[in-house]
């Protein structure tokens, strides 16, 4: 078991209960969709999973460790083994493609020689070969999201978390991005993706976890359910 949540609850400071008693487990190599209508708690669950927020009660185990009780060093190790992608890409606007991707390797203090060879490799892998010098703001939405994905996977994470990565993309571009996610998953990375895009979920036929008003209401392979 790679990820396990135990009686996970999250109540925001304003008293809103965003998640209630979520118990789920995810095996290594799985591809999991997290769906549910707006406000169901998808983003909240993703944030808890990559430790952006702490649960109100319950806990999360990743690779056998309670991530809510980690020391500083282990938090750093956990983050080096997880990649995150967001709906709004979160790229550095004034930089080119290379710098945006290289940033993730610099942040974990990899040697420059490695960065020089590794970045073009990953860019090729996400379909942006030879685009290193281009400013990210001159790219299309789909291409920008590929840069963000390249940045998220360049450290070979065990898990890739994505919160509505196709939210701002048109259907064709979304389908392209999902192919990339499938490749990443096929290469061994566990993918957990929050989305409310029914078409994508239907087409992919993966495991689908459905939330409603903060509760887990369905967990099955296949189609979209609300």
């Amino acid at each position, binding site marked *: 078991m790679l990820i396990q949540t135990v009686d996970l609850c999250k109540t925001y400071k304003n008293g809103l209960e965003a998640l209630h008693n979520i118990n789920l487990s995810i095996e290594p190599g799985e591809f999991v969709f997290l769906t549910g209508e707006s406000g169901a708690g998808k983003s909240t669950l993703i944030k808890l999973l990559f430790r952006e927020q702490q649960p109100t009660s319950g806990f999360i185990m990743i690779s056998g460790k309670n991530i809510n009780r980690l020391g500083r060093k282990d938090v750093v190790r956990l983050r*080096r083994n997880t990649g995150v992608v967001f709906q709004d890409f979160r790229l550095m606007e004034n930089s080119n493609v290379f710098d945006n991707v290289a940033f993730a390797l610099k942040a974990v203090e990899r040697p420059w020689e490695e960065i020089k060879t590794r970045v073009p490799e990953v860019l090729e892998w996400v379909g942006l070969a030879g685009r290193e010098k281009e400013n990210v703001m001159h790219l299309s939405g789909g291409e920008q999201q590929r840069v963000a994905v390249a940045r998220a996977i360049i450290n070979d994470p065990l898990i890739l978390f994505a919160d509505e990565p196709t939210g701002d993309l048109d259907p064709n571009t979304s389908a392209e991005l999902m192919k990339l996610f499938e490749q990443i998953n096929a290469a061994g990375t566990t993918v957990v993706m929050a989305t409310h895009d029914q078409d994508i979920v239907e087409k992919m036929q993966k495991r689908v976890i459905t939330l409603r008003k903060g509760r887990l209401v369905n967990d099955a392979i296949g189609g979209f359910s609300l």
Partner: protein
Amino acid sequence: MKMKSFRYIFPQTFKSMLANGWMTFAAVMTITISLFLCTLFWLLVINVDANATALEEDVRISAYIKEDTQDYSYDRLYYDILAIEGVEAVEYISREDGLKNIAGRFGNTDLLAAMGGVNPLPDCYSITAESKDHVASIAKKLESFTEIDDIRYGEETVDRLFALTDTLRIGGLILMLLMALAAVVLISMSIRLTVMARKKEIMVMKWTGATNAFIRWPFILEGLFLGLMGAVLALGLALVCYHYALGYIAQYVSFLVVLPLSAVWQTTVLFALGAGLLLGMLGSFFPLARFLDV
């Protein structure tokens, strides 16, 4: 964190300092002004201290003779003073010579004319003690002489000077604290701007698993650079001012002990750079604290 990683950290620092250039400028100016004033104060304090110490070592006593003393009493007085235990030499300084001396010290040749032709000084015996341990006892003896009006010697002035140094120190400390506070606030503001501008990058660094040290260093460096630049400018200004003040003092008030530039620059440089770096460190500490609580 690896030492080698500084090559990824330095560019971040300079990029952001250039990006909010006017804030960087304002911060450097504030540090310059506050460190300039602090450095001048520091120079003042060490000089007053030097004067006090020099006076403490001074073994001379001036005994002023009463106006109505008869001429024939002068010789007897001379020998009486010489007979006091611990007196090494006694020299007579007439009121005319006294005025000339003073005029010489202040670089003014015609003091008498400046004072409207009236010499306010009394005649005086200048007494040299064998050592400074004897000064107080000699002064005490001199007080019992009816012909002697007033006694001046180092230690008295020393006490006053030390009182002055204490006042200066306390005043200076308060001034320095206020100045330091202003500098830290401005550095913090400047770095807070950088933090805001780089919020997204900080988040990405965090999520990718950068260590806190790696995230913090660009900001610490920014603080250190701001502090350092301010310190260097302040030092330059202060030392130039000091140089000119020295020339002025040497010309007009030569009896004051003033430490030459060669004697003060090392400690002053250490003082200013140390203060600059410290303020820079402090300034970079606060804006980042809440971002890093992972």
